[in-house]
């Protein structure tokens, strides 16, 4: 009810205006001009003169107790109201009186009044509330006709238009509906069409999702919808709100996975501006990579090249990687740009370019020649591990085409003692051995030195083992080394694996307008996996699995504790209420399903144990007072399928052990095992805390 109370009578303005100036004609648009400073009254044209008097007269009649007492006369007046209403007269003025007239036993009158109410309720939402009481009462009327009538009228009281929040909510709700026929489906789509044009992004995206899901068997409808949502999405992408912009960009990427050309003509919208935050720039660069095609590749690369020299090293590197990924399709242009970037002699640029080259020659062997020509000189500008590894790999695999390759590697060998990254040393060993196979004369000496160093002086075991391995391999013979080390130098098919074919729209339609595209699918998978346990029981929101780590269970035991929910699907219901009598009866009627003895040394604090058990939803029915010998406790628990676990704990201090007997009202060994392990963990934890 409070919801309805809030419907604001916007129309009242109109009503008041009408009454003040009833006979003025609607003003013409021409009269707007010239009087920009003055105020103006606009009213609705009246179709019938004198309606004021009619309303007044009817009102009087409806209020007349004599008429009210005479059923026929009363009905007659109401009929007149309906007649005028049908003629187009505004009869909303007598709404109050008509509501009163609905409380009658005369069904004909009731029907008339309900007809009236359904017509004017949208104009008088506040007063229509008064009618609801009568309608509710009629819903429990003994006469089925009255009940039906009331129900139908209540359903047709369309009192308000939904605002954008309501619309979004309803659109979300409609996702659950399954149309029965194709005809119905298209009817729904036609009805909802206007929501795609809403000014609120939330409503537009909600409608889009609904369309995508309803039309899952009609790809052309889906494409059509995605074309129509292009405008609103692009508008959101250039919105003043950065947050909205980011979310829209994530959704653009999602669409591009299925329709790579979808935004290609709008590539300029995804150019970064210097004032944008980093996370938006990164998204935009990703989008640019994905929408590139023959027409825009030149401009997109030009733009990306601009980013490569950005003040922010992170952003510059992201742009270089982006060029690298475009290079898989447009190899020559990209390699040229990347080569030019090497000329800048900047550490953070060179290292990423070399890494890009390494990945590129593996996928696109046709660019090997160009890459080999670009490499000389790079070594001076690379300091980090990743970059060094990439360069060394390239020198090893394609060294026969790079004249100074042995000399560059020689520098690395000279400095191997001061090299801090083991991965670089490993790479160096492999590369030098490979180069030795193609250029033995230049490499033999330094290979010896490197192997000697790695075997005799190196402290990192992995490097040492690698060195030893190669040394022994060389002892076997050069042919064997060739057989093992000279693998293919490229694998273009890998690119196909990395770029999966276009994904169908249906694969992500249900993720549209959710958080999934914002986090990314893989990240979302980890998130929902982490919280899968929470999601599995919406009906029992407070059901906690044993993973609940109460304050009693110290940090160091957590790993043990969390193993439990993975092993079984035991979910214990919280706040199980069993009376002692019921417990006793059940306990006596069941057989012991499991008995076990746990070690227990020293003192004992029943309260601590009780609290710990409480945390995992095991209730204590009864227990001996502290200090009693032997000490006993009775516990109960129930899982979400209704299976009861009744437990007896028996502590005998003289034996330093705790005996556990569990009874089950249904024989289910799997859950019993889980339960026992929960119990063990708790008792074990308490034991550990104590000691």
């Amino acid at each position, binding site marked *: 009810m409070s919801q309805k109370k*809030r419907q604001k009578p916007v129309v*009242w303005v109109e009503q008041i205006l009408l009454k003040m100036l009833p006979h003025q004609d609607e003003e013409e648009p021409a009269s707007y001009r010239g009087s920009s400073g003055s105020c103006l009254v606009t009213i609705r044209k009246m179709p019938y003169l004198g309606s004021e008097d009619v309303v007044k007269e009817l009102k009087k009649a409806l209020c007349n107790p004599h008429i009210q007492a005479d059923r026929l006369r009363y009905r007659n007046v109401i009929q007149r109201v309906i007649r005028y209403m049908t003629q187009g007269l505004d009869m909303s003025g007598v709404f109050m009186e008509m509501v009163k007239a609905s409380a009658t036993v005369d069904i004909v009158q009731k029907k008339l009044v309900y007809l009236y109410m359904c017509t004017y309720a949208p104009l008088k939402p506040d007063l229509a509330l008064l009618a609801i009481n009568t309608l509710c009462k009629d819903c429990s009327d003994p006469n089925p006709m009255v009940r039906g009538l009331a129900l139908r009228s209540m359903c047709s009281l369309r009192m308000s238009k939904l605002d*954008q929040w309501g619309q979004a909510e309803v659109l979300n709700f409609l996702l659950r509906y399954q149309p029965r026929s194709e005809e119905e489906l298209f009817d729904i789509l036609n009805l909802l069409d206007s929501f795609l044009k809403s000014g609120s992004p939330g409503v537009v*995206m909600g409608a889009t999702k609904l369309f995508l899901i309803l039309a899952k068997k009609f790809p052309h409808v889906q494409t059509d919808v995605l074309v129509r949502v292009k405008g609103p999405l692009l*508008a959101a992408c250039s919105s003043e709100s950065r947050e909205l912009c980011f979310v829209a960009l994530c959704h653009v990427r999602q669409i591009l996975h299925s329709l790579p050309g979808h935004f290609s003509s709008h590539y300029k919208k995804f150019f970064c501006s210097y004032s944008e935050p980093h996370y938006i720039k990164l998204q935009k660069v990703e989008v640019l990579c994905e929408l590139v095609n023959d027409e825009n590749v030149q401009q997109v690369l030009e733009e990306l090249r601009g980013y490569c020299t950005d*003040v922010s090293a992170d952003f510059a590197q992201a742009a270089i990687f982006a060029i690298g990924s475009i290079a898989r399709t447009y190899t020559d242009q990209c390699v040229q740009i990347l080569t030019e970037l090497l000329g800048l002699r900047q550490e953070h640029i060179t290292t990423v370019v070399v890494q890009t080259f390494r990945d590129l020659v593996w996928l696109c062997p046709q660019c090997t020649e160009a890459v080999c020509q670009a490499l000389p000189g790079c070594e001076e500008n690379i300091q980090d591990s990743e970059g060094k590894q990439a360069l060394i790999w390239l020198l090893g695999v394609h060294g026969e085409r790079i004249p100074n390759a042995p000399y560059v590697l020689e520098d690395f060998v000279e400095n191997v003692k001061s090299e801090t990254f083991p991965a670089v040393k490993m790479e160096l060993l492999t590369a030098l051995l490979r180069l030795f196979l193609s250029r033995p004369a230049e490499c033999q000496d330094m290979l010896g030195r490197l192997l000697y160093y790695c075997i005799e002086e190196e402290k990192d075991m992995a490097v040492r083992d690698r060195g030893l391995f190669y040394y022994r391999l060389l002892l076997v013979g050069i042919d064997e080394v060739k057989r093992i080390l000279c693998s293919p130098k490229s694998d273009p098919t890998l690119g196909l694996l990395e770029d999966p074919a276009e994904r169908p729209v249906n694969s992500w339609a249900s993720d549209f307008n959710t958080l999934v595209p914002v986090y990314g699918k893989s990240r979302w998978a980890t998130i929902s996996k982490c919280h899968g346990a929470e999601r599995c029981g919406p009906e029992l929101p407070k059901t906690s699995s044993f993973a609940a780590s109460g304050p009693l269970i110290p940090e160091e035991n957590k790993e043990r504790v969390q193993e439990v929910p993975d092993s079984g699907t035991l979910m214990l219901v919280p706040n199980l209420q069993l009376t002692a009598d019921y417990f006793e009866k059940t306990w006596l009627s069941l057989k012991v399903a499991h008995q076990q003895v746990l070690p227990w040394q020293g003192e004992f604090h029943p309260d601590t144990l009780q609290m710990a058990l409480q945390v995992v939803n095991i209730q204590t029915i009864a227990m001996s007072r502290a200090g009693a010998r032997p000490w006993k406790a009775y516990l109960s628990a129930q899982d979400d399928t209704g299976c009861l676990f009744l437990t007896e704990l028996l502590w005998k201090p003289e034996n330093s052990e705790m005996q556990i007997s569990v009874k089950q009202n249904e024989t289910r060994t799997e859950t019993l095992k889980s339960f026992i392990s929960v119990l063990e963990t708790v008792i074990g934890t308490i034991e550990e805390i104590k000691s």
Partner: protein
Amino acid sequence: MISQFFILSSKGDPLIYKDFRGDSGGRDVAELFYRKLTGLPGDESPVVMVTTGGRRHHEGRHFIHIRHSGLYLVVTTSENVSPFGLLELLSRLATLLGDYCGSLGEGTISRNVALVYELLDEVLDYGYVQTTSTEMLRNFIQTEAVVSKPFSLFDLSSVGLFGAETQQSKVAPSSAASRPVLSSRSDQSQKNEVFLDVVERLSVLIASNGSLLKVDVQGEIRLKSFLPSGSVRREVSLFPGYGPGIRVDEVSFHSFVNLDEFESHRILRLQPPQGELTVMRYQLSDDLPSPLPFRLFPSVQWDRGSGRSTLEPKPRSLNVRLHLPLPRGVISLSQELSSPEQKAELAEGALRWDLPRVQGGSQLSGLFQMDVPRPPGPPSHGLSTSAPPLGLGPASLSFELPRHTCSGLQVRFLRLAFRPCGNANPHKWVRHLSHSDAYVIRI
């Protein structure tokens, strides 16, 4: 649905905290949010964050936030909700709080804590949105806004916009528009005022050879009404400013707008509620009806290490700033500007040339000379001497153009259908402004 809503100051102090569903940890969630935000790696987006690990009751909680006027407006939820809807709600809340408190800021929020909580109470119920209409909420809100200083029309001296977050934000907001919509419900002497702003954001990219690579105009018509509700029917009439008609690529209207006469007469009619409302949004790309507001002619000579740039603004403009990133290690800068009172300075590896006021049609020129250390290494591998070294440019301009719209769209008439109720005729303020979003010239 929403579990919690809170507002943090830019330093992370909680100003407002409200739990709607009681299904989540507690107040320390705000602290957790700020810690997460500040500890985020650079390549991750802070817009939507999730809590993992740690204490169980915080797990799987998503933080969605916007930054507005230096504040963080955050909601938490454990459902996989519509991010568009939530962000929209957050910006609507920001507007709403601005409407009721006068303006949004740390000071106004902490002065009006009671009012903010009262508003939140009505807007959200058990995490579901009830209504966000200023008009409707008015019936339920009892607290009066606390304003730091009384409003006076004399404050209107500066050109100001109520909502636009322009680059400098120096002119905005004027205090006239930043007062609570409903503060003086009982006060009969309240000024009846309507502010209408046409704000355009311009993003432009110009290639080094002067050709235009990208022009994008994002425009909005915003209305802020201080009129007593229910007494008026407001009409906005739009007429094309130039030629046969203004062209917009994409346009959307608020649902309150009646478009019956838009096609024929370009009239938008609406009954706006009190408070702020975006009547119309539009976009325009590539072809502008008017020439670009600025032309920059950079000429750079590298062998001598000097650069000259010429600026030609068309309309009168305010707060112009030329920002030119310079190569690393620039040692000295000498400048020769067209007017002696101007000054350009070096800041954070970039040249900054500020021009508070520029007359339309004028031409300004600046000659900058600097010494750049050559990159080490043999010159044979390096670039030819004519190419610019790394890190120079692109030049970007930021500016505001009062009384100018790049699309040519203008609001010719703002007409109020008004039923006098003892007050004088309402005041109407119509303002046009363009400002730069990104105006980049490659060098």
